[in-house]
């Protein structure tokens, strides 16, 4: 069974915000809500880096742990989704999430906080797949249509990869090894040290923790 994940390649992201636009257009997201956004580090400084951030569909999701009404669930594909009919809009999930993924639409003049909205990995919600009710509450269910998330498939530089975690990890590993830079970073061996799809193995420095 596939476990869906996102990876953003900071060497390729050009901060075009195409992923943000694709997401908003695909799901008809209201003003004030950004399920995905591009974060730039050292903006304006030579060597700045940008990454596209949304819900990372954590394997041990803190939003699920803190939700007082237990509105979250995880699909068989590892996608973290929630039921807007149960959500009370308390905002606990937004404090718990390290990525700032949960978003809250502001309705009315007094900024009343609505029910939480977040990236669904284009997998909709607990309504019938592909139904009008699902679209109204959660947006398109591209996964059930045999497609990948719009943000990843629209990315012009292929910086944002989305899909089965094993497959996109192989794609990213092959890419980094081919460009000859990036595999020396701390944690590389833990994350990508086992090539299964061919390509040269990451260089291992003796006596150095990777």
């Amino acid at each position, binding site marked *: 069974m*596939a476990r869906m994940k996102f990876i953003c390649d900071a060497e390729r992201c050009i901060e075009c915000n195409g992923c943000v636009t694709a997401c908003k257009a695909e799901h008809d997201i209201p003003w004030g809500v950004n399920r995905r956004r591009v974060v730039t580090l050292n903006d304006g400084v030579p060597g700045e880096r940008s990454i596209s951030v949304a819900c990372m569909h954590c394997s041990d999701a803190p939003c699920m742990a803190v939700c007082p009404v*237990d*509105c979250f*669930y995880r*699909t*068989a*594909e590892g996608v973290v*989704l929630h*039921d807007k*009919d*149960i959500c009370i809009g308390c905002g606990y999930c937004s404090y718990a999430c390290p990525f700032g993924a949960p978003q809250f639409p502001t309705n009315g003049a007094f900024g009343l906080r609505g029910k939480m909205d977040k990236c669904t990995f284009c*997998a909709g*919600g*607990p*309504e*019938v*797949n*592909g*139904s009008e009710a699902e679209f109204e509450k959660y947006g*398109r*269910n591209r*996964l*059930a*249509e*045999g*497609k*990948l998330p719009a943000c*990843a*498939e629209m990315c012009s530089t*292929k910086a944002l*990869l*989305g*899909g*089965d975690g094993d*497959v*996109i990890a192989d*794609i990213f590993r*092959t*890419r980094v090894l*081919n460009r000859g830079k990036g595999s020396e970073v701390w944690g590389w061996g833990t994350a990508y040290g086992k090539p299964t799809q061919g*390509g040269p193995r990451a260089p291992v420095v003796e006596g150095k923790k990777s």
Partner: protein
Amino acid sequence: MRQLSAVLALAGACALAGCGERMQTIPVGAVKKVDGQAWQIRDNGYVASGWTPGDEASWTAQITRRTQGQNDYAPRL
């Protein structure tokens, strides 16, 4: 005396009614909906070609194929 007893009884009944509390626990399965499988979809006009809706193996192959479409280093078929 009987009237007073009736009034007291009525007042007592009203006061006790305030002590009643509804159950606030949510029975399992009563509210939480069960999501369908990812490969189960009615054709809404947006289903991608190349796979059979309802067939898990076909869906998995389709998703893997599209994921590989993001690979610049994969040979183009």
